């Protein structure tokens, strides 16, 4: 069974097709980078997947179900584009924030017991952030905040991680560290990953598939396929396609050297 399925999905807002006839399928264990320029519909696409927006036409399936009827939210971990809105006085410690992830699928009145607290502690340890457990989320650096949000998304051992530009507010090294962490989770725990990013050249270092959209679908496949895709060449121009692939090869080689 596919984890995510889009069939001829269209989403229209203010008379404009933000998503125009999009079709693709994501299988278990895939790491898919969703790439495109500002306003190309990347965030709309994942909001449609998560039932936050209702598609205008077509069919969306999340673990084989319509997102509006999907109830097994424990299977999904999500980091939205913007969580901390500069609100540094928000009175939530890192461990309280991670604990919120456990509420997925619980009925009210919800409660967090000692076993849940142990899960939170274990997740903080996995991400190496136990030292900041009692600090307010708003007082943490951007990289630490993203790790806390990742811990919240992971605390229920989800099968699918949906990340909307998780490295946008991070510096280069914090962004790379975060992406390596996601790649490791994908490789070791076989967590399916959907990650929205602007960084077309770098996503090939981590993702095994790439979905390029510009309101309509431009390309879906592996990065290797992208470099020889006539569709991509038609859209970007052969010269730009070559530069993207060359930069990717160069940065991938550098990344491998650093990892070694």
């Amino acid at each position, binding site marked *: 069974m596919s984890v995510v399925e889009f069939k001829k999905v269209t989403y229209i807002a203010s008379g404009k097709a933000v998503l125009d006839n999009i079709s693709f399928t994501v299988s278990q264990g895939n790491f898919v980078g969703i790439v495109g320029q500002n306003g190309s519909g990347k965030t709309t696409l994942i909001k449609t997947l998560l039932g*936050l927006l209702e598609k205008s036409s077509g069919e969306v399936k999340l673990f084989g179900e319509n997102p509006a009827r999907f109830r097994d939210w424990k299977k999904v971990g999500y980091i*939205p584009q913007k969580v901390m809105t500069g609100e540094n006085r928000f*009175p939530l410690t890192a461990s309280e924030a991670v604990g*919120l992830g456990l*509420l997925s*699928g*619980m009925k009210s*009145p*919800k409660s967090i017991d000692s076993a849940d607290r142990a899960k939170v502690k274990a997740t903080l340890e996995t991400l190496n952030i136990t030292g900041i457990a009692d600090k*307010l989320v708003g007082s943490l650096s951007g990289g630490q905040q993203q790790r806390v949000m990742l811990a919240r998304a992971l605390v229920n051992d989800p099968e699918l991680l949906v990340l909307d530009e998780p490295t946008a507010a991070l510096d280069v090294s914090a962004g790379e560290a975060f992406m390596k962490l996601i790649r490791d989770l994908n490789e070791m725990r076989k967590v399916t990953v959907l990650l929205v990013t602007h960084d077309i050249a770098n996503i090939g270092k981590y993702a095994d598939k790439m979905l390029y959209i510009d309101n309509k679908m431009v390309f879906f496949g592996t990065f290797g396929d992208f470099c020889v895709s006539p569709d991509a060449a038609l859209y970007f121009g052969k010269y730009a396609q070559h530069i993207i692939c060359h930069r990717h090869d160069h940065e991938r080689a550098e990344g491998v050297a650093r990892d070694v």
Partner: protein
Amino acid sequence: MTMKGRKELRAMFEALHYSFIQKALLAGGFISVLCAVLGVFLVLKKFSLIGDGLSHVTFFSIALGLFFKTSPLYVSVPVVAVSSLGILKLTEKGKVFGDTAIGIVSSLGIAGGVIIASLSGGFNLDLMSYLFGSILTIQWAEVVLSVALSALVIALVIFYYHDLVAATFDEESAKVMGINTGRVNKVLVLLTSLTVVLSMRIVGIMLVSSFLIIPAASALQLGLSFRSTILASAAFGFVSVISGIFISYAADIPAGASIVMVSFLLFCAAFGLRKVTGR
């Protein structure tokens, strides 16, 4: 302790024997905790002025109640509850900013209240007592109602505690956790409307929003966890009301204003503490 200090302390203890002080402390104590707890969620959702807006609608509903010679409470509860849902609807579906929606409903409330008051021949004493509160003149029936409704609202906050925290921190992620954030927001504004109506006799329409905002704002200065912030806010609210009532009795000044002044002093102390400790 000096002779004068001892004498003042004895006068305070003597005040506890008066029935009107007992009623004020009981009703005020419960309402203060209720307001302070809800206030934390409202302040963090940047919806704190909803108390102010709804208090203006309460002015309209009280004028309406007095005009038709019925208990203002019976008119206020449904009118203010519907208005609170109206503000929410304007914000969520009408894509109107929260403060703008509050401003629209608030002005409508004042305008409606003024029209009804003028139709009934001007502002009478009853209406003025609701504007500025009269906690020292409340009846036992009102005390029982205040305590019962406070207990109900606090029970609902406990029931929805985790949903409220999740939806306040990050509404979008809360939806992806399967939390019905629409229902949570409705519960929050309806509880707020009930609280505003309950508070009108204690602190008065003009000052009710301070009950919701100042204790929460004070607690947020301390940089505590969510649960501790709620407890601290409740403590700030409770101390403000209890000491405000005693100061009002001792200095012979209006209780509502005295409570707000104590509340503000506690905010200054918390703000100063934050600056000194650098939290």
